[in-house]
């Protein structure tokens, strides 16, 4: 796979350098050089919201640092968790005296690192809470929801927690809204072709010439089935069906939808998927609010798409509508 890069060892640091120099609202800090945070210092009294994860998923994770979203983000090598040190630095920078929510995807490595960071910071008197994104319905059954991996749907929790934190809400409230948002968000992805970690000599997985995999994870974790490519409408139908079969208990009939490119899949194809998804949701009595279509959480040049549903209530819907601005997502009042 051809990549526009220099040495693989510089991939992440050069990318971060470019990211923050192209976006003056962001700054890069820390002994590790792997913490992206808002260029302004945190407002005293504001609860901090931080995330983190491996590189290779832009706009995730660092791209969501901005007003009404994240305060900071620790970032690891490609598909590798952020270091404990960078997690600590991100949390410290996001602490305005009212504590910090750690909001990240449910991956073993990331959990270890954020947990360890949190424990080590307790000694410094920084209070932290944790909410784990676990929206990927393909990664475990409904009875083992806490084992599910986090994928694109986490941006809904970034948005609601970030918006509530801006209002001056306390750590418990910010944590609660993030948890509620995660609890109401479901995602499924379909992969059409793999990506390749810089420096690796082979792709992260292989698929046949005309083969796709339903439910594959964003690092190539095995999915639900492999089969020949099918028409977009057939694929959208199955994705929506699986999401609705996993609809959380007790939610209403309004949902936001995110149709996300895993990387190489162009906007044209996303809109073809969206069109069918919307039809199927409406047929199921669901009203779509604030649809999002685009590149929100990728795996570099992987081809494929994911669909997320966030079943809103009045509180979530209002927070999704609150102003927000980061390099890749702007919501205006």
């Amino acid at each position: 796979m051809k990549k526009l890069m220099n040495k693989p060892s510089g991939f992440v640091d050069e990318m971060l350098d470019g990211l923050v120099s192209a976006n003056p609202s962001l700054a890069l800090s820390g002994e590790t050089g792997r913490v992206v945070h808002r260029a302004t210092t945190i407002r005293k009294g504001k609860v901090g919201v931080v995330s983190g994860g491996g590189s290779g998923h832009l706009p995730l994770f660092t791209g969501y640092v901005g007003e009404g979203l994240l305060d900071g983000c620790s970032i690891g090598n490609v598909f590798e968790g952020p270091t404990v040190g960078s997690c600590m630095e991100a949390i410290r920078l996001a602490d305005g005296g009212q504590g910090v929510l750690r909001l990240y995807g449910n991956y073993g490595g990331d959990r270890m690192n954020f947990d360890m960071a949190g424990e080590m910071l307790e000694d410094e008197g920084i209070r932290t809470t944790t909410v784990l994104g676990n929206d990927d319905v393909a990664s475990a059954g409904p009875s083992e929801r806490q084992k599910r991996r986090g994928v694109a749907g986490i941006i809904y929790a970034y948005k609601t927690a970030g918006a509530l934190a801006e209002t001056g809400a306390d750590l418990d409230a910010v944590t609660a809204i993030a948890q509620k948002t995660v609890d109401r968000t479901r995602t499924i992805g379909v992969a059409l072709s793999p990506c390749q970690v810089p420096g690796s000599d082979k792709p992260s997985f292989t698929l046949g010439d005309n083969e796709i995999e339903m439910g594959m994870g964003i690092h190539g974790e095995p999915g639900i089935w492999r089969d020949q490519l099918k028409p977009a409408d057939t694929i959208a139908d199955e994705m929506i069906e699986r999401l609705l079969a996993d609809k959380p208990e007790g939610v209403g009939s309004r949902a936001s939808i995110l149709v996300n490119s895993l990387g190489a899949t162009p906007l044209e194809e996303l809109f073809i998927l969206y069109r069918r998804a919307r039809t199927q949701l409406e047929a199921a009595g669901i009203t779509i609010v604030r649809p999002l279509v685009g590149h929100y959480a990728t795996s570099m040049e992987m081809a494929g798409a994911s669909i997320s549903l966030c079943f809103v209530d009045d509180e979530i819907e209002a927070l999704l509508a609150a102003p927000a601005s980061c390099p890749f997502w702007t919501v205006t009042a």
Partner: protein
Amino acid sequence: MSVTVSSIAFAIARANEAMGPLEQVLNDADAKLGDGDTGGMLARVIGKMAEVDLSGAVDPGTALSQLAKAATLATGSSLGTLFATGLLAAGREAKGREAIDAGDLSDLVATARDAMIARGGASLGDKTVLDSLDAIADAVKDARTPDQAASAAAKAAADALEAFRSRPNRIGRARMFGDQTIGIDDPGMLAIRELTAALAR
């Protein structure tokens, strides 16, 4: 004889040397079932620890904690963070003691092992570094000198690797491959065998 700050520094330096030829071997082992980075990661972590100036450490426990902190800056991979976790826990336990007796080593390794179990959520028997450490904790119980402990540890780590080869991986990236992992060495266990062998030399 006992373990001192300077013998810790010496051990790290030797491990760091050993990583030279080991890096590729461990990457290759990890590439079979994981993401092929165990060697590069360990080289980075141990390299970073070798850079730490331990001369100011008042006791072995403090030295271990300083090494743990260095490790937390160098990697975000599972094994690296588990190493740091183990070192930190052992360091906390040893803090205040002027020296670590050979007879204390078994307890310290067990402390590290337990902290790593708590952090990573894996169990003994899952075919991970934990199983190597568990075997080492047991093997060094009767060691009188650090040298005896090193030989016993090397033998235990080698035996554990042999014993687990025919079993399946039940944690981490390798778990996705299920029974295909039977017959293949776990890269973390392989790393422990090679590093303890280097220390026993």
